[in-house]
């Protein structure tokens, strides 16, 4: 069973879907023109091309991409190698055709010289480019601490979201056949997923830290949940993962032996669940591709909330398209078993209980911290307290963390320790075997106070480890 898993993922449904679309498109799809000459033409006229468009703005004041509002925003664009718009975070893609054309031309010109455009920098703005096969992604950000590695990762996430909807196999096939294909036909209705994901990458520390948060729960209660799921699913073949979520927090993750999920894929699952309200009212059966697990094919996800009283979402991921009723039955069994115990109460209690606070550890001058378990990619992110109660200050703290994480985990110049005294805070980052720790202090903390804080916090984390993290990785 396990050996065939990879092949079985081949998306037959998807294939049908494309064929139908291909038929529909036959008349409208333009035949791919000789691309080289098209690009050459565009290079020659690149600057001329921009000229008229800029002039246009003088005549029509309403052009959105010439306004101050447009310029103040952070942008994400996706286009095809032929310059067809696929996605724009702001504005309507059809109004931006000229801009997409310029982006395509610039990327292609660099590509022509056997090189790859990565980024453009002005004094305060970064333009990041990512080329994935026939998909080009571009972001424009003026957020000072949002450096190139972060924006590049954001674009990778957007690309992964597209793969998650289409699979790499399908995407490649489409563009192999129709270089000029308008991918929006296949993605219509999915813009919300991409929008939500981009928001997630900007606001959720889970993205920056490449980790997931767990719902704090006594390990005995977690064991009950695991037991209920594994015993109900024991006889089901081809079931790869069972995931229980409370909001964006992980309650349990059970996996088939040999297989594992990376945080990046889990984030896509979180995004799917948080973007769709329909799962709350009815169980869903949806194809999903998890690119870091297997970009080539779909899995089927059975998605449902456990009960009215306990708003936790259960996902059962399989490679078998025929399993809906089996999984639906299994879910009922799981609910029945859990209802007999008092686990729902415990889970609800934990959901309602305020998140962990940095101040509860009684460490002087400590304002906030992040503890990341490197083996399981799980992290603790305490609730914001004074002075991080305003959205702006929370935002700058997030960016400070993301930058700190990038510095410590830099691909070229990684760090073991970083201590930095800033105007409004002092920060300490420490990367060691097993975990990473980031602490935010009042600005004038002494180094010995900071070191003492580290020691004290580590003790507390050790003590709470079973409750805060899912340590034993459960398998079917």
């Amino acid at each position, binding site marked *: 069973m396990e050996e065939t898993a990879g092949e079985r993922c081949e998306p037959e449904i998807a294939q049908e879907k494309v064929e139908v679309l291909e038929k529909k498109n036959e008349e409208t799809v333009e035949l791919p023109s000789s691309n080289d000459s098209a690009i050459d033409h565009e290079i020659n006229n690149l600057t*001329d091309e921009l000229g008229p468009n800029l002039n246009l703005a003088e005549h029509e004041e309403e052009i959105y991409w010439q306004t101050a509002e447009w*310029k103040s925003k952070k942008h994400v664009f996706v286009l095809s190698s032929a310059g067809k718009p696929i996605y724009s975070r702001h504005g309507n893609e059809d109004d931006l055709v000229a*801009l997409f054309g310029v982006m395509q031309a610039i990327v292609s*010109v660099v590509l022509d010289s056997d*090189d790859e455009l990565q980024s453009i920098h002005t004094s305060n703005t970064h333009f990041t480019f990512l080329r994935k096969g026939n998909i080009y992604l571009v972001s424009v950000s003026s957020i000072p601490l949002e450096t190139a590695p972060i924006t590049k990762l954001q674009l990778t996430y957007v690309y992964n979201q597209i793969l998650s909807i289409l699979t790499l196999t399908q995407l490649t096939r489409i563009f192999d056949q129709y270089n000029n294909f308008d991918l929006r036909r296949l993605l219509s209705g999915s813009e919300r997923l991409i929008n939500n994901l981009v928001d997630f990458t900007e606001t959720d520390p889970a993205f920056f830290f490449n980790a997931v948060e767990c719902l704090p729960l006594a390990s005995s209660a977690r064991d009950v949940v695991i037991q209920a799921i594994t015993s109900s699913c024991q006889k089901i073949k081809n079931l790869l993962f069972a995931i229980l979520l409370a909001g964006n927090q992980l309650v349990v993750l059970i996996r088939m032996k040999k297989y594992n999920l990376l945080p990046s894929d889990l984030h896509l699952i979180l995004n799917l669940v948080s973007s769709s309200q329909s799962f709350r009212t009815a169980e869903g059966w949806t194809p999903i591709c998890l690119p870091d697990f297997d970009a080539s094919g779909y899995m089927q996800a059975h998605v449902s909330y456990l009960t009215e009283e306990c708003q936790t979402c259960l996902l059962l991921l399989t490679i078998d398209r025929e399993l809906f009723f089996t999984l639906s039955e299994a879910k009922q069994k799981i609910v029945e078993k859990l209802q007999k115990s008092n686990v729902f109460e415990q889970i609800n209690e934990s959901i309602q209980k305020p998140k962990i606070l940095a101040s509860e550890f009684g460490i002087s001058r400590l304002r906030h911290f992040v503890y990341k378990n490197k083996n399981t990619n799980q992290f603790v992110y305490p609730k914001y307290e004074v002075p991080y109660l305003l959205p702006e200050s929370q935002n700058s703290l997030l960016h400070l963390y993301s930058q700190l994480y990038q510095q410590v985990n830099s691909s070229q*110049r990684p760090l073991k320790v*970083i201590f930095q005294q*800033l105007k409004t805070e002092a920060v300490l980052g420490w990367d060691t075997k097993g975990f990473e720790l980031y602490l935010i202090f009042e600005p004038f903390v002494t180094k010995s106070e900071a070191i003492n804080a580290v020691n004290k916090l580590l003790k507390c984390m050790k003590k709470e480890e079973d409750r805060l993290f899912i340590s034993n990785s459960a398998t079917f």
Partner: protein
Amino acid sequence: MQERVDASLNNFYIFNPTFGTTEGEEENKILFFHPPDSDTNNQIKTVGLSEAIIKFTRNFVSQEECKSVHTLKTRQYFYQAQPNYWMVMTVNVPYTKSKNGLKETVYHGENVQDDVYHSILKQAYEMYQLFYDSFQPPSEIQVDLVLLKEKISQFYSKYLQILKISNCDIVDVFQGIQFLPLDKKTYLHAQSFMNQFQCIFHDQVVFSALLVKEHLVWSNIELTDLRTIYRYLITTLLSSHLTENQNGAGTVDNSNLSEMKSGNGISYLNEADYSRFITCPSFYSNIDSEPVTQVPRLILRSGDRSIFQLLVYKVMSSFVCLFVPDAYELTLEFMRSIESFLRSKLIALASELSMHLEKKRFTKGIVSSVGHTFSYVYFNRLNLAQKNTLRDHQAHLTAEVLSMLADISFDSKKKDSVGETIVKTYDDFWIIGQFCNEREFYVVTQQKNSTLIEISDEMKIIRDKQLKSIYFHV
């Protein structure tokens, strides 16, 4: 086997998009292109892409200037020196390739840091300004393109030959000036000598400077000019004189001496009397065997952007630099009067200064009380003073560590007032950066088993010792 190839210059060009706006005349936009052997079509294409990129960014930012473009294999830097005059420098990033071609080539773009190379591009224009003031003077409405191209090409084809592209680091950004620390007596001696000189020649010499080797002792040139002039002196005009006499600052190279004695020029009393003009009008070169440089004509901003003739006189390892207004004719009589003054007064001072330099040489290499070796660099933006032991041979700093220094420096500029940054790298280098009142101080040391607190304490001792009289509160 892996082979690492250093960063190198790919191209360097200057263009103005307003020249040659009609199709077919694109070539006119290009004022300079290096390498010169690149064909016109390629030049037009390259410039066209830069132009497109600049225009593209303006769709999102109206006020900000395009500064750099990163590709896998290159880093490209943009600098708009004057409205519509764009300078672009493309650097090939260092890479490693396996000699048998089995492994993929790996490009190390991270080792070419934007802020470092962008300031190197800016410096290229500042040096041009020292000789030609600007590409287009504000008063000039119609540009003589032929003349402009000629000036630019004359300057940059030489400049690019001495431009160092590989392994640039934070010190290249500071572009600081090394002062020679002197005791009070010597300093007063130097000052009184220069004052006396200024008093006598105040009509002819507006600015002057005194250097010992690459160390500045005294100058009345304003800081805006001093930085570029200092760099010009060290990297170009005096460079050949700085490398000779490597064995000792005070002794004269024997080969030069024998030539001098056999020469027909003025006879010398002893070795210490070895003194002469390095730049002077050709009619005054009195020693046939010593080639004399033409008098450079420089434009000083603090001197109302007017032209000055630079005379440099050398005694032992000391150099006196004199800036004479262009209008003043360098007559034989004037040259003689300067030489006779300098010869009579400078020798005693020059040997005193040489002794100080010797002393300084012996105190290099900093070892803390616990026996750990430290390197450091200090830079004060207010007076451009720089102290630097990073490039000493015993420092053994890796490219990664030097890049890390620049990371820390630029990070401190990005974030709001950083007081101090301490990091430990994976190969156990501790790097400490402190920032206070426009001053920056960095210490590097390799220690595996020290703690953050120990490092911080040791650093304090080093700082107090090396920067004795400098107020630095962190």
